[in-house]
Every structure is written in C-alpha cells, then in structure tokens.
C-alpha cells in the first residue's frame, strides 16, 4: 500500500515491517511467559480468605507457616533463620514462608500488614513491638487472640520480669510473646578520642556538658546525631526524659497526658535537649543513625546516643568492642533500663493456627531465644539464658536488665500507640530543625491528645 503521507516512502515500510516482526516475536514470547505465569500461579501459596473462621481439624492444611517481619539486615535475618531451624526440627515437613517487607522505617511493613489484616488475610504470625504498639493497633481492634494459656503452659510468666509482663499486657491478658529485648538508653563513644582528651564517659547530664565543652574545644564533634530515619532525635529525647523524670514518672507521662502541660520537668527536658543539640552535628537530617554512628567509628565525632542495635552495626563494620568503641548508659540514666521488645502474636483467623502456636512456643523457649538473640545482637526476654553464647556487651546488658528499673520506650512502640508515636516524632523532628522550644512544647501537648487513658 503506497503512502505519501507522513508515514513516508516504501523504504520506511521495510523498517516498519521489521518493527512489526519484532513485536510479533515479542507477543509470542510474552504469551508463553504469561502462560507459564498462569501455570506457576496455580501452585502459588496464596492464603485462602477468612470465611472459614471455624477451625478445621489439623489434618489437611497445616503444611505451611507464614511469618511476617521486617528483619532483612544481616544479623537479624540470620537470627530469624535460626528460629526457623528450630521450628523445622519440631515440625519437619512444614514449609516456612518468610514474608519480609523493609523500607520506609517500618511504614511499608505496616502498610502491607494493615491491608492484609483489613481484608481478613492475616499471616500466621507477625513481628510487632510488644506493648502499646500492638495493643493500641491490633488488640483494641479485636484482631488478636489472647495467649494466656500459652504463657501458663510454657511457664513464661515465671521466667520473664514482672515489670515487663505488666507493661506488655492489656487488661490482664497477654497477646504476644517477647523474643528479645533491646535497650534504648545507651551511649556509644570512641575510645581513642576520649583517651586522647583524658576524658571519662559522662555519668550525669552535667558530666555530659563538661565533657562536651572540652571536646568541642578540641575540635571534635561531641555528639553525633542522625535524623533521616525520623526517629533519631525523638529517641534522644526519650532518653533525656528518662534522665529528668526517672522511670516511674516517665512511664506516667503516657498514661496521664495532662503532665505534658502541667509538669515543669517537661520544659526542663526540652532545655536539656536544646543544649545537647548545640553540641551535635548540624547536618543531622541528612544522616541516618548508622551514618552518625560511622562518625564515631571514624573518630570525627566522640559520642552517639542510640539503642543497642548500634552494637551490631559497629561489629559488622569491623570495629572492635572495647578497642575502637565503648559503651555506657546514656547520661543521667544509670540504673535505668529503657526497653523495647520484638514479639510475635497470634492473629485471629491465622490460616495455620496450630503451626502458629508452635512458632510462638519456639519464640518463647530458652532454646529459641538463645539461638536468635546472639545473632540479632539483643538479649532474651527470659531471665534464664545460657550465658555462654552471649558476648561481652550482651552479658553486660543481660545483667543490667535483671537489676535495673525498667521503663518502656515510647519511640519504639512500648509505651504508646502509633498515632501518638507519629505526633511525638513529628514534634521532635520539627524541633531538631527549628529549635523553637515553645513550638515543640505546644506540639507535644497536641500530641498528648492521642494518648488514650
């Protein structure tokens, strides 16, 4: 067919035929690909929707276990794998589906989990911070099964600290089993920088300011703080709140919202935070907590205040404990242990309920916790660990966990619900940039509206 329009002469016709042929091949290839996909799709383990809420006898479907988490880093992924191994020994022949979602500082995982639970399509168990994050989000919505019997059966109530059990239960019932404990209020410092300047790690808040002044004069950034993950400065603030209020009153802040307005110690804590930030790096908001910790390794900064998952980072980067870096409780919090805990619960309508229950048993067992925690770089929630598998820092932490006064972390889901955490975090992140003390106080008071007593 001859065309004299913009479609050109017969010369271009040949090229167009070439394109057509390529497209035809492409169509053929992709139809076979989609055919393969359709065949493969049939064998995919998509869970069936929830209408079968009535428990079918274990006979047929209990050949899978789907665990949902955001443990994708080395260390934590290894720890999870260790737990899977133990489960497989107890229940050989069960296929374990490791559903992980990372990124967005956990928001992506929450987005996926929420859409699944909304649609009545829960995983068999999912990682969640023990405490108010679980309770405020899932328990009050009636999506979790209470597991008091399990706690009784396995004797967990006897081997986990009472304060912890109180702080993770809701109306006397348990909804998740804590696998590990991380500590929030830790200070990490570069040993050489401190030695060169003849300094000791600060114990009290005043010690910190003295040390920081000397470091600043020596040309080293005293405190390295991040901001990109949006929880670094809120984290610093919760450790300062702990120092100013002490564990008991700190915990009250989240059950008596009026304290944020009436208690003068709130202003004091904000003052302290402002002073701390004056000793910190100005480019916080572009650094993740790990980048900030890197500066301590490099020696360009002296200290960083971060939870003890920083320990795992230091080790993975090849920095030797006690040689390159050292640790101490964050200033003013000696004798206090601010905990957060990853735990697993039993969602209602779990497709493979019996496997899920077995999984919980593994998570709460001594064997399981001692296999998981050394790899993750955290300590067990149980008070009877096998000390031989834990290294120097973790043994220190285990001892402190057993003796110190416990307080729940607010930034990591123990002390308050998600809505509050977000508002609290927003207030602190705005403050990190604006340093407007009045503004952050009023935003914190606004945030307190989310606390439900």
């Amino acid at each position, binding site marked *: *067919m001859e065309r004299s*329009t*913009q*479609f050109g002469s017969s010369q271009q016709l040949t090229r*167009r035929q070439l*394109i*057509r042929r390529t*497209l035809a091949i492409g*169509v053929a*290839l*992709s139809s076979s*690909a*989609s055919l*393969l*996909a*359709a065949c*493969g*799709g049939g064998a*995919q*383990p*998509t*869970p069936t*929707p929830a209408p079968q809420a009535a428990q079918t006898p274990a006979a047929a479907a209990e050949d899978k276990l*789907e665990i*949902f988490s*955001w443990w*994708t*880093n*080395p260390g*934590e992924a290894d720890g999870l794998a260790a737990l899977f191994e133990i489960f497989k020994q107890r229940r050989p022949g069960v296929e374990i589906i*490791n*559903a*992980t*979602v*990372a*990124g*967005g500082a*956990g928001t*992506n*995982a929450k*987005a*996926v989990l929420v*859409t*699944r639970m*909304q*649609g009545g*399509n829960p995983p068999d168990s999912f990682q969640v911070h023990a405490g108010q994050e679980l309770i405020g989000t899932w328990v009050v919505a009636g999506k979790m099964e209470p597991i008091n019997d399990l706690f009784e059966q396995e004797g967990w109530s006897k081997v986990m600290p009472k304060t912890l059990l109180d702080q993770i239960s809701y109306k006397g019932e348990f909804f998740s089993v804590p696998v590990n404990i991380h500590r929030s209020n830790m200070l990490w410092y570069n040993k050489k920088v401190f030695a060169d300047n003849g300094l000791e790690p600060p114990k009290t808040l005043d010690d910190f300011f003295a040390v920081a002044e000397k470091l600043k004069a020596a040309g080293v950034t005293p405190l390295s703080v991040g901001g990109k993950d949006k929880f670094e400065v809120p984290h610093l603030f919760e450790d300062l709140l702990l120092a100013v209020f002490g564990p008991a009153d700190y915990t009250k802040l989240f059950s008596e919202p009026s304290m944020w307005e009436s208690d003068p110690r709130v202003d004091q804590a904000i003052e302290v935070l402002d002073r701390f930030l004056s000793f910190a790096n100005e480019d916080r908001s572009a*650094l*993740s*907590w*790990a*980048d900030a910790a*890197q500066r301590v390794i*490099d020696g360009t900064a002296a200290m960083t205040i971060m939870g003890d*998952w920083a320990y*795992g*980072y230091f080790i*993975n*980067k*090849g920095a030797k404990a006690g040689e390159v870096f050292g640790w101490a409780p964050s200033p003013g919090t000696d004798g206090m242990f601010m905990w957060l805990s990853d735990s697993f619960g039993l969602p209602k309508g779990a497709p493979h309920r019996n496997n899920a229950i077995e999984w919980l048993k593994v998570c709460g067992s001594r064997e399981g916790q001692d296999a998981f925690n050394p790899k993750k770089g955290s300590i067990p929630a149980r008070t009877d660990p096998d000390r031989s598998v834990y290294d120097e820092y973790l043994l220190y932490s285990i001892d402190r966990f057993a003796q110190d006064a416990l307080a729940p972390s607010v930034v990591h889901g123990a002390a308050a619900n998600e809505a509050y955490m977000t508002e609290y975090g927003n207030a602190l992140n705005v403050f990190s940039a604006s340093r407007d003390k009045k503004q952050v106080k009023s935003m914190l008071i606004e945030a307190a509206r989310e606390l439900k007593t």
Partner: protein
Amino acid sequence: MSAREFPVRRLRPARLAMYAIMVGFALFYLLPVYLMFITGMKSFEEVNISRMWDLPSGLRFDSFIAAWKTLERSFLNSFQMVIPATIVSSLLGSLNGYVLSKWRFRGSDALFTAILFGMFIPYQSILIPLVLTLQRLGLYGSIPGLILTHVVYGIPITTLIFRNYYASIPTELLEAAKVDGAGFFTIYRRVILPLSATGFVVVAIWQFTSIWNEFLFGLVITNSPQERPVTVALQNIAGSQYTMWNVQMAGALLVALPTLLVYILLGRYFLRGLLAGSLKG
C-alpha cells in the same frame, strides 16, 4: 544572512560553547550513575559517605552477586507482571483510541475526557478500596491482581496516546474501506493496525517503564517474595536497621538495567513516535 555565511572564525566559539554545554549536561546526567557504580564495587567496610568519591579498591562484583541473589525471584515476578500488562493495556488503548478518534458518537469526547481524568488521581487515595476490591475478586496477593491494576490504570494514558496518534490517519482511508463494505473490525485489522507500529512502540516503551518502576501498587498488592516485583525487593535490600550501601546501589543498577536497555535500543523509535504526534496536546 544565513548561518552558512558566518565567517568560520566567528563560528568556532559558538560551536565550542554549544559542545561545552552539552558535555556539561551529559556529565550532570551521568554523575549519579557513576556514583552508584563505584559504590556497588566496594565492600561494606569500604563504603563510607565521607569517602564516596574514592575509587573502589578493585573490580569487585560481590555486591552485584549478593544483590542478584535477593532480586532474582523478583525479576521473574516483574517480567511476569510487566509483559502481559503492557501488551493488554496497549491493545486496549489502541482499540479505545480507534473508537474515540474514528467512530465518534454523541458524547464520545466527554467520555474520553472522563477516562482521561483517571490518569490524574493520586494512587495513595485509592489504595484501600483497591485492595478490598481485589480481595473480593480473589486477586489480592497475586501477580494477575497486579496486572489487572496496571492495566486498568494504564487505560487513560494508552488511550490518550493512541487517540492522538490515530487522529492523524486521514478519514478518507476509512471512508474508502467502508465503501468497500468493511466493518469495524476489518478496518481495524486492515487499515489501522498496520499503521500503528510506531504508536505501539511509544506506548509499549512508556508502559513498560512505568509499570517496571512502579512501587506503591507493588508494595501493597503483593505480600510475599513469590509475587513481589523488583522495586519492592530493592527496598528490602535497604534493610530496616541500616543500609548496606554497596549492595543497595548494585541492586539499584540491576533493577534499572531492563528499562535502560529499552531506552538505549528503542529510544529513536520513541522519538519517532512523538514526532508522529502521539503525545501532542
């Protein structure tokens, strides 16, 4: 005075400046890729934000291999999703464009506008009802569900491109065919389709790239490694605690490879398609 009459001497600085600008911009466009590449070559200990421009200590591909191990399955998922979705949405767009440009009826323009509006909605706003609907259709958590989603939300743009593209086909061609007794589908097969090659190329490139790079739907509609597309898996490499940047950057390069190849190999057809008026007002 035309450009040819300028004395050669005076021409040099202007041309030189032009080339300088073009090279400058080329460097601007290549800089991030260069950074990603050298970071991907480093080991985790070497990776340091304060030394990011340092060349890696050697030509090491470990990070790429590590990234590939995590991404392998997702690559398959993404291909299984992108290729059918591109084909179906292209065909639909072509048929729709054909109808809306050549078989107008009362209100067809209004209908087209109503379809076009679908292109502009923010996808966050429809995530929840989308998931609920997919669950009701039994397609949630599956690649076919993703395909359906991308096909539906690709309808506006593919229809737009083809409608504009076909608008430039003279109506006389169709009239002549009708006179000879051809009906709707015959005209499509014999007249329209043979002329659509460039249009299909533009649409295919556009859709392939958009769907391959899409993140939000992939994140929310799939929930296990068996179905997850490559953009979501890439985020997983980032890790929840801290990021191993060497693996992350290596993974990012791997993910970009298919679409990069498409643009490098088919870029000129894309241009030709634009020339033929596919994306005009």
